[in-house]
Each structure stands twice: as C-alpha cells, then as structure tokens.
C-alpha cells in the first residue's frame, strides 16, 4: 500500500469520526433528534468506498447500504455538509430533503439507492440492480451491506438465492459487517454458527470472513473480491468483523464503549502509521482538531439553510406530467 493511500485512509477515518461525533452531539439536542452510524467500521468501510465506482447508470456500481456507511460515502467523495444537512433535517439535505434519519443516504448520481430503515430488505432488492448490470455487460457490480443480527430475516436467504439462479448468477458483493450485536442482543444469543458468511456455501457461492478493523486486510481482500465479482459476474459474500464504538444508536446510549473493550480501528491505524513514520502523532492530533473544528463550522453554516416547509410533505409522491 502506497504511503499516500495510507495517509488518505487515515484522513478519511478522522473525517468520518469527527463527522459522526459531531452528529452524536447534535442528537442530544433539537439539532438532530437521533443518531446512528458507523464508528468502529471505518477500516473496512473506507476501503470499500475507495474501491467502489460511483456514477449514474449501469456502467457504475449500485449501492444498497446499511445505516453505518457514512465513511464509505465520504471515501466515495461525499461532502460532509450533505450528511450534516440530513442530520439537521434541512430542506437542502440532498438525500431526503429533511425527511429521513441521519445516515439514510440516497444519491441517484452515484447509484446510491435509498437506505431503508427496514432491516435486511436491501438484500431482496440488490439482485434486481445486479440483474440489470449482468444484462448490460461491463464491470459494474452491486454492493449491499447489512449487520449481523439482520441476517436472521428471511430476506437474507432471498438475496443469496436470487443472486445464484442457474445461468443467472449476478454480480453482487454481499457484505455483512458483524459487530456481534443487534441493539442489545449479542451474537452468541441468536446465531447458531461461528460465521454468517459460511451460509453462502449452501448456494454454491464463494465467501470469506475477515478482520474489518484492519485497514490492510480489508483493502486487500476487498480488492480481490471486488475484482472477482466484476470479472466473473458472480456473487460473493464477505463478512467483516467490526466494532460498534458508540453503541447501537443515540436511543441506546451513544457513548463510547469502555476503553479497550472493542478495537478502535482509527487508533490502531494511526498508531501503525505513526510507527511507520507515515504521520507524526502531532499531525494526527492536529488532524482531529482541525476536522472537529471544520465540522463545527459546517454545522453553523448548514443550520442557516432553509428548513423543509409544511407544504413540501406532498412533493415527489408521484411523477406528474410525463
């Protein structure tokens, strides 16, 4: 991995973290109402975003995200202000116009399909975009993410089954970010086996499980499996073990988990780069400082933007005048 890339990933990690922390604070006031997001998943989610091919239409990748993919969106080029606009439910929120919760992305220019609150339904939708891509040709793929607990829904099976129809295997990268919790219910209480991805075997699908808190492991394996899906035009299931550093959401205590209880991939990566002299500790701390500051300023800026109006509730239900 080149030095520039290493540094770029650290920078994105810091941006993502500072953005999420900014939004956590907002959720405790009328500025935000609510937060849930991805601290603890950055080492995986950023490589994912860097390797993805956002764009509009069948030549690009399609995305069906879980609600913990802010770092992926940042790596794909999202302006953090856009995320804050949604968190602060401004009319200028480009994803939903102030309608949806934070981290519920939708961006048609990047093929980012609307993130839904209904857990796991995205796995039932993903084979559809991939089918269109398979027919179209090229190397565009569909990327769909979910959490570990959500894989209990029947939609888990449906996604895998539709992606592996005989003669119609479709290019979907199925990703489970396994933080070993669904809200308060631990993995060990509800999952019969060590790995979720292993179930892919029953569909004749390739699969793997990796440490998603390790940047290099994630980057390397994602490169390989995305290449496989792009060229073979077949699905792959990747499970990444990740942390959930601020708990489930603001409703269940968005506070850091006790020091050391879960791996903080940003800290780990920073220490590594400091050791490798890619960055100094001072520069790293300044980076955090600067990004925190930037997010504060962004928030001030976007708070001045217009709020959605009452009448706007009727906008965009149907397309008219076609």
């Amino acid at each position, binding site marked *: 991995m080149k030095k520039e890339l290493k540094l770029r990933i650290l920078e994105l990690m810091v941006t993502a973290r500072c953005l999420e922390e900014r939004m956590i604070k907002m959720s405790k006031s009328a500025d935000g109402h609510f937060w849930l997001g991805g601290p603890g998943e950055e080492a995986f989610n950023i490589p994912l975003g860097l390797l993805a091919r956002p764009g509009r239409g069948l030549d690009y990748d399609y995305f069906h995200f879980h609600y913990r993919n802010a770092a992926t969106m940042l790596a794909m080029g999202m302006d953090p202000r856009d995320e804050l606009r949604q968190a602060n439910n401004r009319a200028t929120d480009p994803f939903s116009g102030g309608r949806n919760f934070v981290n519920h992305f939708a961006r048609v220019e990047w093929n980012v399909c609307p993130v839904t609150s209904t857990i796991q339904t995205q796995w039932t939708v993903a084979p*559809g975009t991939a089918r269109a891509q398979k027919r179209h040709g090229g190397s565009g793929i569909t990327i769909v993410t979910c959490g570990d607990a959500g894989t209990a829904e029947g939609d888990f099976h449906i996604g895998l089954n539709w992606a592996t129809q005989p003669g119609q295997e479709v290019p979907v990268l199925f990703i489970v970010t396994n933080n070993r919790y669904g809200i308060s219910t631990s993995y060990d209480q509800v999952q019969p086996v060590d790995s979720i991805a292993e179930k892919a075997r029953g569909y004749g699908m390739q699969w793997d499980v990796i440490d998603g808190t390790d940047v290099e492991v994630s980057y390397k394996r994602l490169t390989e499996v995305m290449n496989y899906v792009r060229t073979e035009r077949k699905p792959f299931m990747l499970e990444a073990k990740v942390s959930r550093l601020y708990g489930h959401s603001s409703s269940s205590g968005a506070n850091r988990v006790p020091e050391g209880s879960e791996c903080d991939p940003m800290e780990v990566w920073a220490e590594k780069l400091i050791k490798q002299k890619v960055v100094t500790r001072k520069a790293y701390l300044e980076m955090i400082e600067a990004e925190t500051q930037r997010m504060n300023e962004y928030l001030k800026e976007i708070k001045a933007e217009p709020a959605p109006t009452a009448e706007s509730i009727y906008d965009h239900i149907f*397309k008219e005048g076609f």
Partner: protein
Amino acid sequence: MATMAQALRMALHYGEEHLGVTDIFGEDVGPPLGGVFTVSQGLKTAWNSPLDERGIIGTALGLALAGQKPVCEVQFGDYIFNTIDLLKLVGNTRWSSNGQFEVPLVCMTIVGAGIHGSIYHSHSFESIAAHIPGWKIVLPSTPLDAYGLLISSIKDPNPVMFLYPKALIRVKGEELIPGEPEERELKRMIDAPTGPTLFHIEEARKSWKPQWPKGLTDYQVPIGKAKMVQEGRDITVVTYSRHVFLAKQAAAELANDGITTEIIDLRTLYPWDRDTVMQSVRKTGRVLVLNEDTPVCNFGEHILREINHHCFYELVARPRLLAGADVPGVGLHENLELASVPQVGDIVRELRAICSEVP
C-alpha cells in the same frame, strides 16, 4: 373477441416491443407455462422466478432502480400479503429520496372470488393496496379496459398495482381491441399449444412461436377515469371488476319496477374519478358502493366518506356499502362462497332498500 387473458398478453407484447418493458416475471410466468392463467405465453422477456413473492417485489424494485421497466406478477393476490413492507418501500422510494429515484414498475396480480377458489384463491387486495401510499391502482372489468389500462400502467413512470379479476380472466370481451384479429384466428396466433401433461406441453411448445397481430396500438384507458356503464336517474352504483356485471343484472331486475340505475365502473381505484362519481350522486341522490372485499376498512368506505363529504346535502337516502362478509375467508362449498361475497339478489335487496328509504 379476445378474453382478458389474451388482451393482457397482447398488451404485454406491445409493451415489450414498443414501450421498453424489459422483464415480465413471476412464478410460472416464463416458458413452458406462460402463467397459470396463460397471460404471459410466448412473450420474449418473460421468465420464471423462484417461488418467492418477496424476491419478486424486491427484484422488480431493484430492476426499476436500475432503469429497467419490469412487469412482475404475484401468482395470486392471496399470496401478496407477505410483501406489504416491500410494497410500502416501492411506494415511498421516490418520496423518501426527495424525488431522485423513479420506480417505474407494474405489479400484476389476480384477485377476487367466484370460481370456487376456497380460502386462498378468493382474496381481494384493493383495500390494503389503497392504504399503501405511492401506488396507482387499477382493476379492469373487460378485456378492452384491461388492454388499455395495462398500456397506461406500463407508460406510467410510477408504480402501478394492476389487479385483475379471476372470475373474468377467461371471459370474452364485447368490444374489439384495436388491431385484434378475428376470434379463432387470434386463438390460433397467440394461444400456446396445450397437452394432457406438463411433459406434453413442454414438448409441444418447444417449437412454438406466437404470431402477434400486426395492428396492435398503444390504445390507452387513462388512469383515473371511470366508465359510465349505464345511465340512470334513480340510484347510482359505484363498483368495479366482476361486480359491474352483477350490478347490471340487478339493475335489469329493478328496471322491471321502473327504477333506472346508473352504474359506474371505477376502473382505477387510486386515484379514483371523483368527478364522475359525485356528478352521478348529485343527480340520483342515492348511491350503493359495491365490492367483494371484507367490510372493515374497505375501499368502499373511503368512497362513501368522500361522497358524504361532497354530496351530503344532496343525498336523499343513506348511502350504503355492500361488501363481502366479515369473515376470515371465502369457504369452498358453493353455499359458503355465495354467502360470503355479494350476489345479484343481495344487490337487488340493497338497491330496493335504498330506493324505498323515506327520510
């Protein structure tokens, strides 16, 4: 004349050829069967899905998000109830994304009782469908309307729920579809050869190709326009689907007593044609809303609310709903089926009651 199954097949063919339809799919929709009611025989984009309604709706949504034009089928309306959350997503995708994503899909499913379908081949779906925002909902009663509404549904860039009546799927029309050949000719051209077993059917269809009529057009029935089935002075019946015909029979009985009945076939349930309905009710002052869904939170109650709101002081008798019985299903035995969904006799009874009501 074409049956409704043939009309739908021709409209789907027209959609494939001229309107950009990319996928017609669902359980047994592709070869060899071409649909359990023959609707999708011989269509070039038709394919068989896994037996999984959630996957069907999900895949249709995915295809639509990726710019395709899917027409998906749920084999029976009775089996669509495991997809309501997904139908809600389909309906809210455009709105939730603040207008970014279009969802130009059509979902077809066959509904209603009247063929001894027992508990799970007799369900209505319109009342729950109409409660799901973001969908247009149509429900034709004739082959010609079925053709025209399906063309309109395919052309519509919004999600359209295309319901069609089980009891009428094999009934021939009384009006010609533009471009429709003579009846036996049509059958020869577009009905797939059949056989005593699936093995024979598969064999016979291997070499079969439909000959599509050349003159088919994009004849449309606009979404949102009701049809005045017959005019009358004394009472209005607002109905749709199979009950249009039962209403006509009931009206014929009342005509013997000199009562003339105006019958409106809504054809589209969302958005429905308020103008036609209100105008008629203002004229007659009496109205029966008629359908076969169960009666609690029935779509007819919605119509009644609007009629009451807009025509309250012009009504000369209580407006009424005649709907299916409030029971968990339609039983198989004829006695049960007849008692569970409105029959001609029931309609006559209600019409007379309304007409004889003296405030």
